């Protein structure tokens, strides 16, 4: 069997979703527009984007909570509407709200039953996952008494109780304190170590940098960047940041250099240019009577990547889902 015939854990092809809003359903929000994603087995895949970018909608379509208006989504080659597809998946929604009248143990047990576990196997798995998420001591308290962090951990426990091959997490660390975020990150990394494919969406960039193998940046329901974290960071790493004085931006441009990023700092000028362009530009600046105060190689971060993608999307159209 060739690698191409093995179904991917997650694949979307030209996936679109338009929500109809208002009493007469006459307002439309294009939450997703022709999204193509391919998530390979064993990866931690992050979907990054501002509010309204279509991140949660993508995950909800994958979990059969929302029906797409165009294109298709597949889980292990099967449409999410089939229960066989969802049997292999664990899902943690944003701000999970488990039944408050149940104890943590009862809720995880219910999740296990819905996956098909029973008897001794169910009891063993429930005990295991409660231990994994460090909720053994509070497992027999009603969920209404839990803190936000405890609810998130119970939510994670119910997602992994069936030993899923794919874990889908919607904003898993939002609203958590630093300790809670760290714990949840550790749980995600532990799942990856077990070979579970993880796809999660967030707008918390450090989480993506810390966890992801690959990243997709969504803006306005469209995929604007996609690649491995390493590739995306390397692509922007050949930039240098110069602080100049004795020369204006206009003068710099007359020297025949395009300056994609500039900022005036009182009597100085901060610019970012590619490393290749930096040497000829430096020569011309000095010849034109300017001075070079500093020169630093820019450490390109996902945050820079995210904001540059956002900037690009803003200049070409909508950012938070197109409304008509």
């Amino acid at each position, binding site marked *: 069997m060739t690698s191409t015939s093995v179904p991917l854990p997650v694949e979307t092809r030209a996936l679109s979703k338009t929500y109809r809003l208002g009493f007469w359903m006459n307002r439309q929000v294009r939450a997703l527009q022709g999204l193509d994603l391919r998530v390979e087995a064993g990866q931690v895949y992050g979907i990054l984007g501002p509010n309204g970018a279509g991140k949660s909608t993508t995950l909800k379509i994958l979990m*059969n909570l*929302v029906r797409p208006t165009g294109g298709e989504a597949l889980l292990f080659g099967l449409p999410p509407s089939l229960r066989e597809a*969802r049997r292999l998946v664990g899902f943690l*929604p944003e701000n999970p709200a488990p039944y408050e*009248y149940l104890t943590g143990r009862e809720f995880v047990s219910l999740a296990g039953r*819905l996956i098909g576990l*029973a008897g001794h196997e169910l009891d063993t798995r429930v005990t295991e996952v409660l231990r994994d998420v460090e909720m053994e001591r509070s497992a027999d308290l009603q969920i209404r008494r839990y803190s936000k962090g405890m609810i998130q951990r119970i939510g994670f426990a119910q997602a992994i109780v069936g030993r899923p091959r794919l874990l889908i997490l919607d904003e898993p660390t939002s609203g958590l304190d630093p300790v809670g975020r760290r714990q949840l990150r550790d749980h995600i990394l532990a799942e990856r170590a077990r070979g579970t494919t993880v796809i999660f969406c967030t707008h918390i960039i450090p989480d993506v940098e810390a966890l992801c193998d690959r990243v997709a940046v969504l803006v306005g329901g469209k995929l604007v960047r996609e690649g491995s974290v390493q590739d995306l960071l390397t692509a922007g790493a050949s930039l240098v940041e110069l602080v100049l004085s004795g020369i204006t931006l206009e003068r710099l441009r007359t020297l025949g250099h395009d300056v994609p990023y500039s900022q005036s700092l009182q009597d100085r000028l901060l610019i970012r240019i590619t490393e290749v362009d930096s040497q000829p530009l430096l020569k011309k600046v000095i010849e034109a009577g300017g001075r070079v105060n500093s020169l630093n190689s820019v450490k390109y971060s996902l945050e820079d990547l995210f904001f540059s993608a956002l900037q690009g999307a803003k200049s070409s159209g909508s950012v938070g889902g197109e409304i008509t």
Partner: protein
Amino acid sequence: MIRSFLAVAFNSFREALRHRISVVVVAFSVALLFATSLVADVTVITLDRVVTDFGLGAMSISLVMLTIFLSCSQLSREIERKTIFLIVSKPISRGEFLVARFAGNMFTLAVLILLMSAVFVAEVVLNGGSVTEAQLVALVMLWFELMVISSVGFLVSSFSSQLVSAVVTTGVYISGHLSDDIYSLSTRTKVPSLRALGHTLYYMLPNLERLNYRPKASYVLSSTFSEVFGSAAYGTAYAALMVTFAVLLFARRDFK
């Protein structure tokens, strides 16, 4: 498949038991049933009839209120709080989930009717009466009436909020007991459109009087098996239709 169905159904039962309002309603109706003794004390004649009227009436009112609350709140609240994300993302179909919820609700109501019936029977016996067949039929048919009300609650809450569901279901309960009157009034009107409206309402609304055997229990009037069976079949068919519509709507719904 059956395992997940039973898990959801049992959870509905557990939810109702742990809900404070259920406990309050049950306690209230049990207290009301015992209060029959007080009414009996001030009754000069037809003691049996007063005990039956008061007991069955108390059970009916409190259980109808509880049914409206449970059927309209469970699904709506689950959708509003987004708890449903955690359940329908599991390998269970939406239809299966909704029917299991409904089954769990009906099981809860069956248990409550059994408990209250025990109190009612004790009350009848304590007042020197004996339990009649008509009373037992009325108790059984009360469950079918609750099933119809519950199915309407589930249908409305599958696409609307808790408050709207409760208002509509209460309206259907009241008009369902008046559907014969709606029909006879509409036949007397000379305005064709009103007549058509009355007839449409009559055929759309459940005929809850057909499931109300409490007056017969009061007058100790027996019913034939075919009549009772026909009424039970009518209630079951109406509830099945409502649940089918609910499943169709629920399956197409987006959970944003």
